[in-house]
């Protein structure tokens, strides 16, 4: 009997921890998901408070509620969505054009010494010219039409993708390449099954750099010369001293940037499942 009691106690303990687990897990999951948003929400609340008590003048920085209202008005009129759509389309078009060219050059120069000898020097020289310095020239060439923005964004995203793809292809494990050859893979199979997957983590690093440069370039270009888009919306608002709309545009940039980052992470998880860094630990 003396032995039975502690046994029963420990049994009860086990039951309790089993009960606690399903409760504890969702809380931990929710905490992990929301942790990144705690600071922005707190800052927003502080900002609203300081505006309400008059520490921040509305013509310097309007309260978040005022900006939300401006956002609602712009959303209702359809103006906001139209401008966001225009900007997003421009950004993606530039990313696709510049990204595909960068990927192609990166792969070609990674695989072929001949191609690298003839093009790498030129590309490195162009890379060292800040592409935003070309804006006056680009306006002279293309005016303020879509081509100008497309050109600048494509040029901006080209280099991070090119350099990281090249690096990825050059650093694929030579032992795996030798194995592929020894096991009779054709050059195409070798590329598809060994070289491209090996270079992929590096290509994703390039893509994430490229996304940052994509927004930066687009916003600068739209602010200087455009007739639609978020940058244009902000500049128009400045003309009419609509500080709330200017701040609204800036906040939307932040949100779009975050959205692009989330999309890339999702893509990474999808494509790099095999990588220990992206694996969820198994039981």
């Amino acid at each position, binding site marked *: 009997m003396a032995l039975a009691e502690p046994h029963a106690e420990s049994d009860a303990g086990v039951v309790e921890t089993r009960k606690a687990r399903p409760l504890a897990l969702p809380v931990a999951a929710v905490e992990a998901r929301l942790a990144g948003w705690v600071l922005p929400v707190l800052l927003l609340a502080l900002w609203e408070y300081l505006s309400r008590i008059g520490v921040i003048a509305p013509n310097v920085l309007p309260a978040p509620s005022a900006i939300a209202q401006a956002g609602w008005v712009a959303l209702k009129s359809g103006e906001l969505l139209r401008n966001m759509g225009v900007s997003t389309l421009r950004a993606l078009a530039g990313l696709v054009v510049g990204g595909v060219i960068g990927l192609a050059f990166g792969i070609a120069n990674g695989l072929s010494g001949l191609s690298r000898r003839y093009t790498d020097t030129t590309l490195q020289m162009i890379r060292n010219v800040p592409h935003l310095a070309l804006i006056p020239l680009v306006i002279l060439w293309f005016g303020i039409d879509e081509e100008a923005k497309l050109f600048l964004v494509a040029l901006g995203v080209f280099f991070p993708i090119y350099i990281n793809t090249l690096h990825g292809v050059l650093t694929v494990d030579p*032992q795996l390449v030798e194995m592929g050859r*020894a096991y009779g893979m054709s050059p195409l199979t070798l590329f598809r099954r060994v070289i491209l997957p090996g270079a992929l983590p590096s290509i994703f690093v390039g893509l994430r750099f490229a996304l940052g440069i994509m927004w930066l370039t687009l916003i600068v270009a739209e602010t200087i010369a455009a007739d639609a888009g978020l940058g244009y919306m902000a500049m128009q608002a400045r003309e009419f001293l609509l500080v709330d709309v200017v701040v609204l545009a800036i906040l939307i940039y932040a949100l779009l940037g975050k959205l692009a980052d989330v999309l890339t992470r999702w893509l990474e998880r999808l494509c790099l499942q095999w990588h220990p860094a992206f694996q969820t630990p198994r039981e």
Partner: protein
Amino acid sequence: MTIAPAPSSFKLPDTPRGLGLRLERVGRSFGTKRVLEQIDLAIPAGQFVAVVGKSGCGKSTLLRLIAGLDRPSAGRLLFDGPQEGAATRIMFQEPRLLPWERVLANVEVGLPASVKGEERHDRARAILAEVGLADRAGEWPAVLSGGQKQRVALARALASGPRLLAFDEPLGALDALTRIEMQTLLERLWREQGFTALLVTHDVAEALALADRIVLIDRGRIALDLDIDLPRPRRRGSAELAALEGRILDTLFSS
């Protein structure tokens, strides 16, 4: 970790087993450095030959020549049948699995391109069962232990039913117990399938446990060519093996 008994589903291809080969005055130099000189060696079909020697003696170069990863700069290699493609396979010191493909797909790398569709999976699964890893087919290589990875690499090498299998110290990086287990597996598969095996190793005891014949390479030349005529499976640590090991080590360090 137990090694599963051979399932009956794994069938040998209908080609004759074992590829015999002959090396005639084979030499290989890199620049002015002569790594191998005047190697004359005849290996009959189905023999298990171990090549031992100190590091840098040219034993790996010899293996790469025979496996077709390198060409001799002098002499010639003669095979008694086609040795290209799937007939010769090499197993490296490292597993060299594709980390982005599952275990089963990694084994399928070893199959010839002519095997298509569902048959690829079936054959890969059968050979995976042969090395005792049937239940790990869907895993990423990253979650396997070193010994398991090397067994997947062995399955990949065996998948095409090669007639000549070259082993470049494939057990060198494994711990002592996994190593003995792998040696047993290697011996069993060699006896079942009858391929010609060429094992490069610096472990004389390992060579003695497995090989029909030990070839000792020293400074690019064959220093000793010894037939090991002992019954299998050999008992590790027996007096006969110890005496032979002593003799080989003496030859190794006397020069």
